[in-house]
Each structure stands twice: as C-alpha cells, then as structure tokens.
C-alpha cells in the first residue's frame, strides 16, 4: 500500500460526560481518499467521536488535526468551509422547506454573496447549477419541489446525503447513513456513497451497523469498544481478529456465510 497523506488525525482525544468517558484517549489517522468505517456495539462512543471530529462537541482533552492544522474547538460553521461535511444518524434537514431549497441552501453557503440582501437568489447561477446536479445525483429530481417532511424516510436519508454533497467537501463524515432505511433501499445508497468517494477521490468516514455493507465497501475499519479503539485494519484483518470476534462480531458476522 502506498503511503498516502493523512487527512484527519486525532491525538489522545477524550470526551467525558461527568464520570463517563464516552471517548477515551483515541488516537487515529485517516488517509486521504479512503473509505473508513467505524464500527462497534451501541454505546461504544462512535457518535460522540463523530461529534468531536465535526466540532459539534468540544473534547475534554486531546486535539483534532485536519490536514495538519489544529481544528480543535473551531466554530462549527467553519468546518464546511474547510472541507468537512457531516450527516446525522437522526435525519437533520429543513422539514418545511422544499427538497430543492434544502440543497440550494447547502450550496449557497459556499458563496461569498450571502450578505447581498437585495439580490435575487434565483440569479445565483453557480448555486442553481450545483443544486440541480446534486439533486440529480441523489435521485430526487421528481421530488424537488415538495416539502422535505413529506418525503418517505429513505428519500430523506438521500436528501441528507445531498445536503452534505452540495458544498463538495473533501471529507465526509456519515453517521449511519442507512439508519432506518428499508433493506432494499440500502444498496442504492451505499453504491451512491461509493461512487462519490471513488469518482471524486473523497475521504469518507462511515459509522454503520450493517456488517455486510461495512465489510464490502470499506478500505479500513476501526472497531470501537467502551470509548477506546479495540482494533484497526482491513476488513479481512478485522473479521479474523479474535478480540473483535468476542467483543462485538461474535455471532453477528461470520465471513463464511
């Protein structure tokens, strides 16, 4: 494997909630252009770890570096401008706005014209073009003009993905993108994520519970358990790891089935 650049790195990252160490001394390096999955049982600290990466939470101790730059404690609205996009486990969209407006707002954030309060938004051509491309990409063209709240759950997950694709980030943090989706819709979304990652050479960090998906698509996997990193490696290494088997995978996933 060729040595690639590290896009995001944590050093001794910890987050305590009272006496509970939700994330405990996690140091991790993630290479540019990979699809990296984070797995672990419920309560392992995956989402907290994500919140630390994306700036939604401030770490108790430790630091986060993005492309070598310390981003610990940066305001959350700066993240996307640096190239970090994040989706949520629980769908986080603008329910009363149309699908088009949801994506358009996400594209508009990258413009420097946001304080022209007499300008007509429909005249922001690059934003409109970008919006149309993203809506097409996530397959919501027919639903573009309906309020996001009336979309079925699976389509809302696609919209959520569209919202973070619109600003074209280099690093995508996807927190259970398929959560609550009907099984038959999962492959479609996963293919989409893979396409995005491969065609644009983006880095994707994924929290996912569906083991079949994780084993198939990931370049590398990190297993978290009780706030710590239990193991890290390629899907094959992880599947063969005895510790992981007993802590988490035991009975849940067997490479031979």
């Amino acid at each position: 494997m060729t040595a690639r650049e590290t896009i995001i790195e944590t050093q001794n990252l910890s987050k305590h909630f009272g006496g509970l160490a939700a994330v405990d001394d996690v140091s991790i390096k993630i290479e540019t252009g990979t699809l990296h999955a984070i797995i672990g049982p419920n309560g392992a600290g995956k989402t907290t770890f994500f919140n630390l990466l994306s700036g939604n939470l401030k770490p108790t101790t430790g630091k986060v570096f993005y492309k070598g730059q310390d981003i610990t404690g940066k305001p959350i609205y700066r993240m996307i401008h640096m190239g970090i996009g994040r989706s949520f486990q629980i769908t986080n969209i603008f329910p009363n706005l149309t699908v088009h407006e949801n994506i358009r707002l996400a594209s508009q954030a990258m413009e420097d014209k946001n304080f022209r309060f007499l300008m007509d938004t429909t005249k922001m051509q690059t934003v409109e073009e970008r919006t149309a491309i993203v809506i097409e990409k996530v397959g919501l063209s027919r639903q573009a003009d309906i309020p996001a709240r009336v979309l079925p759950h699976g389509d809302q997950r696609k919209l959520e993905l569209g919202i973070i694709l619109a600003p074209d980030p280099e690093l995508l943090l996807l927190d259970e993108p398929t959560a609550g989706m009907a099984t038959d819709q999962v492959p479609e979304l996963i293919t989409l994520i893979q396409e995005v990652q491969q065609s644009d050479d983006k880095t994707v960090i994924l929290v996912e519970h569906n083991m079949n998906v994780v084993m198939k698509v990931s370049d590398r996997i990190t297993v978290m358990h009780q706030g710590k990193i239990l193991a890290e490696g390629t899907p094959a290494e992880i599947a063969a790891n005895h510790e992981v088997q007993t802590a988490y995978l035991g009975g849940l996933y067997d490479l031979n089935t």
Partner: protein
Amino acid sequence: MTTNSNFLTRNRGILIFFVVMLLAPFLIGLLEGSSPAVVLANEGGLSKFLEGLGIEIFILAIFALSFDLLFGITGLLSFGHAMFFAVAAYLTGIALKTLQLPFWQVTLLVLLAAIVQALLFSIVLPRVKGITFTLVSLGLASVFHIIVMSSDMINLTGADVGLQGVPTPAFINPASERFRFYVIALIFLVATYIFYRRFVASPTGRVCVAIRENEDRAKMLGYSTTTFKVVAMIISSITASIAGMLHALYQPIISPTVADLGFTVTALLIVLIGGVGTLSGAIVGAFGFRLLDFTLRRFLGESASFVTGSVYVIFVLFVPYGIIGTLRLEKLSTRAGWKELFSRIRGNA
C-alpha cells in the same frame, strides 16, 4: 418566482394596494360631495378623518412588518419589540421639542439609535435561544419602559402623562398637511413591504428562513447564524424606528403605552391575524386589528377591549394560519396549524 418577471408584475398586489389607497381619500371625498381639490386642501371632513385612521393603520402595519421579519421569517420571538418603536418615538419628540434639532439631524439620530438597540439585543443573541430570548428581550424593553415612566424623567418624557407638544415640522404637519402625511406614511409602508419581499428572496433572507426552520442545521451548513440574526435584527429595528418616528410626528401625545409589553403584543396579534411569516399578513392584520378596535369601541365604549380580546382568542383558535396564511393553504388543518404556531413560539432551541 421566475427570473424574467419585472418589477411591476412581481409586486402587482402591493402596487394595486398603493393606487387604491392613494385614490381612497378622493373617492370618499366624492361620496360626501367634496371635490378632489377640497380633499387636497385638507378641508374634507370625513376624508380627512379617514386619512387619519389610515395613517394609524399604515404605522401599525410598518411596525407589524418589522415584527414579522423577526418572528415570522427569522424565528425570533422578541417581547421587547415595542422598545424599537418607543425609543424612536420618544427620541423624535425630545429631539424636536427639548433639543430643537433640525429635522435631518433628528432622522439621523433615530437611525443611529435603531442600530445601537439592535446591537444591544445582539449581545444576548448568541447566548440565549427560543423562549429564553423572548424573556431577555422583555427584560431589556422593561428597563426602557421604567425609565420612560420614572418621575425623574418627567421633563423629558412626560412620564405617565406622555410626551406632549412636539413641534412637527410644518411641511408634514398632520393637521394642516394631512393628505401629504397620509401619502408619506403610505409610501413608507409600500416601500418597506417591497424591500422585505426582496430581502426574503435574497441569499441573506433565505438563510434567515433556514435559521427559523433548523438553526443547528444552518450552522452545520456553514452559516454563522448569529451574524444573520443580527442583520435581521438591524433591518427590523430600523423599520420599527421609522414607524415610531412617524407615530411621534402624527400623534399629539406620545403615550408611554407604546413602550410596554402590550404594544409588542399588538404587533404579535396583527401578525397572527394576518398570518405569521407571510409579510402581506402584517398589512391585512393591521387593517383588521385597527378597524375592529375602532368599530367596537364606537359601539361598546371601554368594554370593547373585552370583546376584541375574545375575538382574537377565537380567531387564533380556529384560524391558526391567519388570513393570508389560510388563503395560501390547500386545505385547512387547525390541529397542524396549532402545532406549527407552538413550534414557532417555542423556537428551535
């Protein structure tokens, strides 16, 4: 919202309103048998009286519009909104009467005060959200109300009696130049409305709507939401100040009631009647509010406020989207309307 539509077609509704309102005094004049020349000379009886009522409605509508920009568009429920209006009114009165400043300096002072107040509110904006912001804003405005009412300030503000004897510049004297004042107030209302419509369709305005819908998400999209809220706050306070200044110039007495919570609630009621976040609802609501109040007071006297109160409660219960809001709906679901209203009031904190 098509890109090729021009100014006239885009603002058809409000421009028709403008023309109708402009012609109304003459039509009423003709009905009572006085020629347009008489109306222009401000000698018509009924037309002059109704112009006065119109001026009050226009001022209320401008004030309600500024409230809707914060509450209906940006999702900030301020209970201190009357302060913007009252500060401008009192400042205009004191500057003209006590300080005897020239009119342009008064205007400048009022605008400056509007921006300072908006920035004052902005100190708390990033720290408190939802209903907490509502209470903090109420506290801020109460301080001003107490200052206005205090007997130490009686020489400046007139305390609970109100500020009287403000010398209005001759060219807009509401007694001798009623029609001119009427047209000026109307122009301010129409201009504010057109400006607000543009604002809501602008990138800044769209972000304000996004903040109302889901502030945390807007932040994650990369918007410094506090900055946008401050922009909305400044625009709103300047608008409310214009209304307050017109009020001071029009009314013979500036009553301290314009500084208290009741006056903010007036704006809230107007917006509720017309439809929250619809903008045009503020104008429709102002007409409804003032005309209902006027008519009932005429027949019932002081007990009218009990009846008007009941009317509003029943109205909001059964028409939670307001007049304009309901017209825009495909079908009315009262329950969904209540839910939406509650979520708006609670904010997304």
